[in-house]
């Protein structure tokens, strides 16, 4: 059984994102900071007439801050709110077979929270990134 996945690069690693979770892929414009919000929230950006919350994927994964020059983002919708997940780059959309995480695979930090499986592209394993897990849960931050 195959699903459609979007192959993208985050923090230098290739990942697969379930196409069902992706609303669109855009280059976002100016980001307005949100003082006092958690560092995961990079700020707000306008997407046509909609305001999206921009998520710093680097910090969400427990890595370093995503550089300001990176403006490509995957838009996802969680509980009625739109989020822009910053990514390094986006390759393409292709059908893959969803595989379980390899036994004994030790994911650490943020990766462990967001990884939910594997796909194999020409023999290269890609971690399936659960966008819903990247979006900060209510009650977090503050």
């Amino acid at each position, binding site marked *: 059984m195959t699903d459609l996945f979007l192959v993208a690069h985050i923090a230098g690693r290739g990942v697969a994102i379930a196409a069902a979770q992706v609303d669109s892929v855009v280059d976002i*414009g*100016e980001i*307005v*900071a*949100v*003082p*006092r*919000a*958690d560092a*995961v*929230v990079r700020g*707000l*950006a*306008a997407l*046509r*007439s*909609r*305001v999206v*919350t921009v998520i710093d994927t680097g910090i969400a994964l427990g890595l370093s801050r995503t550089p300001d020059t990176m403006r490509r983002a995957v838009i996802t919708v969680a*509980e009625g*709110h*739109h*989020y822009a997940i910053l990514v390094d780059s986006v390759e393409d959309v292709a059908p893959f077979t969803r595989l379980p995480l390899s036994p004994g695979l030790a994911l650490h930090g943020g990766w462990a929270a967001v990884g939910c499986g594997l796909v194999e592209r020409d023999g290269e394993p890609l971690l399936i990134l659960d966008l819903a897990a990247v*979006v*900060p*849960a*209510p*009650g*977090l*931050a*503050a």
Partner: protein
Amino acid sequence: MDDLLQEFIAETRETLEAISGEIVAWELAPADGARLDAIFRFVHTVKGSCGFLDLPRLARLSHAAEDVLAAVRDGNRTPDTALVNAVLGIVDRIAQIVDAIDAGATLDDSDEHALIAALAPDAQPTAPAAAAPVGRSASRSVRLNVDLLDHMMSGMSDMVLARNELARQLRDGDVDPKVEAALERLSLTVADMRDTVTRTRMQKVDALFSALPRMVRDTSAELCKAVNLVIEGADVELDREMIELMRDPLVHIIRNCIDHGIETPMARRAAGKPETGRLVVSARQSGNQILIEVSDDGQGIDVARIVAKAAEKKLHTPTELVAMSETSRLQLIFAPGLSSRDTVTATSGRGVGMDVVRANIEQIGGRVVLVNTPGRGLRIIINVPLTLSILSTIIVGVGTQRFALPRQAIEEIVMVRGDQVRPDMIGDAATATVRGKRMPLVSLGDLFKLTKDAPPTLVIVSTREGDYALGVDTVLDTEELVVKPASPAVMATGVYAGMTLPDNGLPMLLLDASGIAAVAGLRFAPVAAADAVTLEEVVPGIPALLFDDLDGQRRAIALAVIDRVEPVSTEAIRWSAGAMRLSVGDAIIPLYAVGDFASRREVAVLRLTDGESEMAYAIAEAIEIVELPFEIAPARGSGPIAGVVLIAGEQVELIDPHALFSGQPVMIASPPVCLLQVDGSGWMETFLKPALEASGYRCVTSLSKGETAAVALAMEDAPPCEALAPVVTLRRAISADGANDASIYRYDRPALIAALAARRTI
């Protein structure tokens, strides 16, 4: 009313279309509970709407159908083909009548009793009558899908952004004035369009409230209750969709309040409440929510009875009910099929309403909170989210960023300069003193870590807890903004109320003044404590006017009966035709006075009115408006004094306007005159006069011209020379001189007073 009727027709048609499938399905499987519920809800809604639109035929039909369906729901009847057919016959007839109303045509109602009779358990199956369809008339209103409106809204915003972008591009280059004029025109059109499109979504909550007075009037008349409806905050704007969705629940809640909450006038009087019940419907905005509150001063919810009902209906096991908290027990009124009423009325039915009400409100992401005070009333607070709302805001700049502040929270904006406004540090807490008033100061730049500089501008914001000064760099503009809820990660900061996208295309955050105060750690303890006290029991007292009466007594009268207070010349007051009258312009109105005012040239009168007739009450001086306490010590005897109330530690007589208007004899109640036949020893003046005056007599030693004495006092050895008044004779000896001696021992005070009262001319 026409609008409401149109809406009712449109809505009923829409529901009819929606349930037509359910009806067919129910016909095939009469035992299906879900289908039954859908049809039940339909007839219930129709019944509810008919009540206040005054459509008795529809009300009759839907009530009959509802009865039968309720019996099926309760398991008292099994749905068979005959019953299904009969109900469907009624649903069809409802559709026909609705069409007829719309077309303004009349529809024969001769066979309607047959339709209703067919619902009876032993009815013979009848062939469904095929009535001729009535032509539908064209309507000037259309119902649109909300998605379409949303799409239009976002398209509009995009258009505004495109216009701005175009304007920016043109500003950079050298532009032909013609192009500029065209752009100008485009801008105006776009602005106009934006307003229109916005209006399609927003509506004043007045649209929801305007039908209430009529409905309350009709419902209360139907139930023989007196209800005074107070509507507050009708200007609050609400999403049109929200208004539509709120309509039915609100109507239902209010009908319930009148039916179950407010008691009959007799019961109210027995409970010591005013006969007219008070029903307050208010709307207000609080943060990113709209609160619609319906409060009555009725009997509240009898929780014990609700629990008993729930046990009887086996909604919960007794063990569960015992373990329930008071709040959860109260929540039982939302359980399906539970009514606190033992009898079924046409008004609010059998309690099917409240479960539907809660379902409707929760469907739009709202919440219902009940505040029950048994015997005192019930407050139902409906919280609905402000999904889309236009807010008047002030844009402030801090560092490089801009924020919006709701205008309603702002008291004033002051610049830090001179002596009038000075920021200080008290310990490590910043304060601002604005024209002598000291308040906490929160520097937004500091709080948000945007700048370190001292803020040059202070925005004085008021929150529920107290006022404080918010320091910002600049105040930029005022703007009407469409505020949307921000994502949870942003809201978690506690300092924002939402976000918005202004014309410049950069998202902006809306600040939450209370949230900022909380995050900055401001404490408004004393005010908060006072707030808690008022929350406990807010029963508005009756305002009354406190005044000094002509006889020197301090009295109070309910403010509502006073039309105005005005000075009149005493010459305008005449004792004519057996009553005191005051001439005002061309009219003569009765005057009531408890004391003498002949010595004055002018006297203040209270012009009282009961809405129709008018009368005047002469007073010495109006003092102030006070709130009457609940406790009133009743007066003894009749008369225009209702009782005695305690105002600021002082006993004050409360005037009974009812007695005044019901035609109490109007007279100058000046104290009776007691003529003292002095014998030159001075005993009467020194010993007797104070005692007599304390008992309400005015003592004179000789009558002035035209004055008459009520009673005269004389010593046994100095009888009065002429009989001006009945005489009470005093003697020096303690014991009487024989049985015929009617004189009174001069130090026997009770006997003296009694004798005076007995003999005096009234």
